[in-house]
């Protein structure tokens, strides 16, 4: 078979596998979407209590998109690195895939099917709840830029999740538990709030946080909040990171597979 058609067949197989799996566990999937929506709503309603009523129409869309970007990032990390530990490792499927010459990162990347489907259900539900509390609001100004910002955030999260998943194959710690920066970076890393709104020392942290660049584009696309580094700079940085992070993760996995997994095997931690 031609190399490109072989790759296409594998890609189709991965997407098919994860689509079927999501359908097979449809109640878990629906429950998880509702669960996500409810937890986000609890926090959103809590945050609204801090904001004076007259500022809500301006602040609510910014909070909404900040939480949406974080939700996509978090679930990408949990669904990829967590699934690696709690499903692939527990079931002994890692060695099986390596022995058959199958591409583990591609299999893991297929989890994006479930992540995106879940976000597609949860995010609109959160919007309806927020609209009920904060009133009608304009959420999108530029669809193209919004899509670009969300897509680059997703690509960065994929790269990060694959790195954690690879580490989890050799450490006795599940992938999501390695993600210790998740909550901290959400608040101080320019994801939740515009970088310009952060105190001066935290702006440096935010600029160094890859996701903040994608979040700045999303905020601009939604509310015309000008990014701290300027729109063009953010578009270029986000694009570069969206390519570099998954590529680095792939190279890292290949290194670990060659030097550790094939020599010493997987270090499983089982179900917790």
């Amino acid at each position, binding site marked *: 078979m031609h190399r490109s058609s072989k790759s296409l067949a594998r890609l189709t197989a991965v997407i098919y596998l994860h689509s079927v799996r999501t359908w097979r566990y449809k109640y878990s999937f629906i429950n998880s979407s509702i669960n996500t929506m409810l937890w986000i709503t*609890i926090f959103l309603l809590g945050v609204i*209590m801090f904001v004076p009523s007259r500022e809500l129409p301006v602040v609510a869309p*910014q909070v909404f998109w900040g939480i949406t970007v974080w939700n996509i990032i978090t679930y990408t990390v949990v669904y990829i690195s967590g699934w690696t530990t709690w499903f692939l490792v527990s079931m002994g499927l890692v060695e099986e895939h390596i022995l058959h010459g199958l591409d583990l990162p591609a299999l893991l990347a297929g989890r994006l099917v479930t992540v995106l489907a879940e976000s597609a259900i949860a995010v609109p539900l959160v919007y309806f709840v927020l609209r009920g509390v904060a009133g009608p609001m304009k959420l999108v100004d530029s669809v193209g830029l919004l899509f670009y910002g969300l897509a680059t955030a997703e690509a960065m999260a994929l790269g990060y999740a694959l790195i954690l998943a690879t580490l989890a194959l050799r450490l006795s710690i599940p992938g999501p538990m390695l993600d210790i920066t998740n909550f901290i970076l959400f*608040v101080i890393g320019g994801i*939740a709030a515009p970088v310009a709104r952060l105190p001066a020392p935290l702006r440096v942290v935010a600029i160094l946080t890859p996701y903040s660049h994608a979040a700045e584009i999303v905020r601009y696309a939604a509310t015309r909040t000008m990014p701290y580094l300027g729109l063009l700079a953010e578009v270029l940085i986000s694009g570069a990171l969206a390519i570099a992070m998954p590529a680095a993760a792939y190279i890292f996995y290949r290194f670990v597979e060659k030097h550790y997994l094939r020599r010493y095997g997987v270090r499983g931690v089982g179900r917790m």
Partner: protein
Amino acid sequence: MPSSFFDVVAAEFYAYTRFYKNNRAMMIAAFIWPYLMVLILLGLGYLFGSLSQYAVRMGVRNPVFFIVSASTVAMSSTFIVDEVANYTLYNRWNGTLSYILLTPMRLPKQLLAASIPSTLISPAISVTSALPVALYFEGLRGAAIIAALYAVIVLGMIPLAGLSVLIAGLVLTVREETNIANSITPFLLLVSGVFYPVAILPKALQLIAIAVPVKYVVDIARAIASTGTFSHEVFLAIYALTFMAFTYNALVAPLLGAIEEKVKRYAPF
């Protein structure tokens, strides 16, 4: 000699404490989690608004102490609902559910006995993690408030005991990979107004909240975290919880036999 209810409680207590002894990282995570919730809420609140605004709208004297207490309630007050379902799922994944079902003890009794240690220990870890903040802001009075909070959280879980067994049975019979009912927990917290007043919710949710035990736990937490005393409102909430403990479990009891039969027929496979 068949095992008694207390034998199972003792065995599960041993298993649960060994789990934490052998997973210290999990223990540390359990201590840190309420603070992560606090960090998100306070961080976003600070970036988009102000603490004084929150204090005024919530009617609390010390918003930081209140948010720490509320996070502890959010982490623990519905713990039993997920715990019983997760216990059964965990045993099915491990292949030990069949053995549990074969023991002479009735399944609902077995599940309740198994969940008691974790239901007592896990909230204890959560409230202990809030202790440094309580001592810092309120001194010894803060420690007394935290101790009272623990008692109220445990009391608030008693009305949910029967419901927890029903949910565990449902989760087993649908044969999915995760707890398909775990969105019940955030729903109970949502209508209880853990970080905000229930009055901002739609009318329908406010009506549902009246029947939800967690709402009264939140009311008590808010009252004792703001005044530090057991006011008239606190005693009314305790009466409501006691009433619900009897009524809800009595309502659920007749259904438990049917769910046990269904689980024994389908669940282990």
